[in-house]
């Protein structure tokens, strides 16, 4: 029997649900972002000093990092989903899996570092 007829679970309900939940969280955080941004820095974050001041609030730091994590998760799961649409070979998919996890983790670490760095400059 051809392998195509035996289901593989490269993207099952779990990963898919994660993408949707992350997507909905983005909407939530984006709303929160606008509200907090408006309350904390009504004039916008157009200068370095503004940004640093903004990051003095620990809620902001936590929120921005969480936002980054859901955005990265959603977009990278989405990228993987698009890749799956192209019916990749197992080797390509394995490479993509590793690449996405590595880049995603790196982006989150980098973002976290950046946020903490700015916060520490207050």
């Amino acid at each position: 029997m051809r392998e195509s007829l035996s289901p593989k679970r490269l993207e099952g309900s779990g990963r898919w649900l994660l993408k949707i939940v992350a997507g909905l969280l983005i909407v939530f955080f984006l709303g929160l972002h606008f509200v907090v941004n408006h309350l904390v820095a009504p004039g916008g974050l157009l200068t370095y000093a503004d940004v640093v001041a903004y990051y003095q609030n620990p809620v902001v730091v936590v929120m921005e990092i969480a936002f980054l994590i859901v955005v990265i998760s959603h977009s990278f799961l989405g990228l993987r989903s698009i890749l799956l649409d192209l019916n990749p070979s197992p080797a390509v998919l394995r490479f993509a899996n590793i690449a996405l996890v590595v880049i995603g983790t790196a982006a989150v670490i980098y973002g976290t570092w950046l946020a903490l760095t700015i916060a520490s400059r207050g």
Partner: protein
Amino acid sequence: MTEQPWQVHFKIYRQRSGQKPYIQTLTLAVDPDEYILDAIERIWANHDRTLTYRHACHHSTCGACGMRVNGCEKLACITTIRSVTQNGGNLRIDPLRNFPVVSDLVVDMGDFFLRMNKSGFDSVALSEAACLPYEKPKILMDQAEQVTERLVDCIECGLCISACPAANTDKEYVGPAVLASIQFMYAQNPSQELIDQADHHSGLWRCHSAYECTQVCPSGVDPAWRIMDMRKKVLTDRIKSIFRPRSQEKKNA
């Protein structure tokens, strides 16, 4: 017919097996209310005996004559010429997409039928089940007398698979008709096996909600609705299974 016949330019995809395709042009006087399949049959009978095409029932119950008419998937047997072109207009006829072309307008439905078979698709069901759940017919008489059967709506014509943007690139995607069949069978008799057939990367989660399948379906199966319904069922089942005690899990498996 009171109306004058129309002059229509047929542009038909032609391909001998293993050779390069080309477009054959043919101008025909047609009755605008003539069905496209009848026109094709006439072209074969009177103009070009080498043309190959699939057909059987000529009234949308067999699903053999699916083809693309001016780019859009149609059952040729119930599509009138009037509905797709005008007098002096063009009529482009292509084979379905996402199926291997055997020759001209004939595509190989083998794997698709095998997948339908695997989903356990039953072409006859109780009347109650054969319709879409959201349009259940009114029970017109006492229930006891109304135990009737029905040939179900899906005629396995493949139009939905041809129109689907996901099937367009992923040859492993089982496609709308098969997922609809799984939903249909699951609604009648839920089983873990059917869930497993749907819940994988080439199944339910490959759908990207373009709703083309429902748009082109000639028999109102609404495959997109069925895919979404099956998603709901799979997600509910998976979430429930987290809270289900292990002993019960075994029982259900």
